[in-house]
């Protein structure tokens, strides 16, 4: 299991390739890439800055991954999350999961993303263009993210 918090970009293709080659009995690789959108709540976004809580971030992601490993039959997990300043189309996060069969990897990958979105201490601030005006604002947490996480609390 690998968890990396970094300012620099990453080569998602290479990371996924290394992960899936780690075991010869890997049959399924599910990955999620989150990237900066050029629009949010109707406004043009030109820059996004990500702040985090060093120390807690790694522990939160470790705990989320441990939960996924105890719930589903998966081989390995890779999480890379960037911090710092990014532009539209830049990669923010990669979560990749390998397993023997696809069902487990799909569930674990989505579970990790839903928990990361609601429990890992990252905060986004965006620079928006509204006509001629440039404005900075903190991105608000979404209720839909809380709802997405709640689904996993149901008996399974």
């Amino acid at each position, binding site marked *: 299991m690998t968890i990396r918090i970094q300012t620099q970009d990453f080569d998602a293709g290479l990371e996924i390739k290394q992960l899936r080659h780690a075991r010869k009995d890997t049959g399924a690789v599910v990955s999620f890439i989150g990237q900066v959108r050029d629009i949010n709540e109707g406004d043009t976004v030109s820059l996004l800055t990500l702040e*985090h*809580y060093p120390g*807690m971030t790694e522990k*939160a992601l470790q705990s989320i991954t441990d939960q996924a490993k105890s719930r589903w039959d998966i081989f390995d997990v890779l999480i890379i999350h960037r911090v710092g300043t990014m532009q539209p189309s830049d990669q923010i996060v990669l979560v990749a999961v390998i397993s023997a069969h696809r069902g487990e990897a799909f569930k674990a990958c989505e579970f990790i993303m839903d928990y*990361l*979105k609601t429990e890992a201490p*990252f*905060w986004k601030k965006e620079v928006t263009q509204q006509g001629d005006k440039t404005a900075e604002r903190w991105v608000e947490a979404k209720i839909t993210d809380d709802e997405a996480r709640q689904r996993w609390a149901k008996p399974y």
Partner: protein
Amino acid sequence: MKIKIFYFARLKETLKFSTEDLELPDDEYAGLTVLKLKAHLAKRSDVWQQMLLGKLKVRGAINHELVDDSAALSDGDEVAFFPPVTGG
């Protein structure tokens, strides 16, 4: 009792504090909870009041674990206050 406090995102920006070391008299602050600590800090000014006990949702962590307002603090704890997270 000595604790270390971190502030993040909107709280850090508005309070103009990213971290502080706080020493509280043991007798006065026995059984200190997250909520009591917020109330203590909120006395500093209107801005502190608004940021910690206003309508902004504030989450707390003790030693890197998310906790509720009722969580108890111990000597040497690292406490953090921040808005709901928005990573990913």
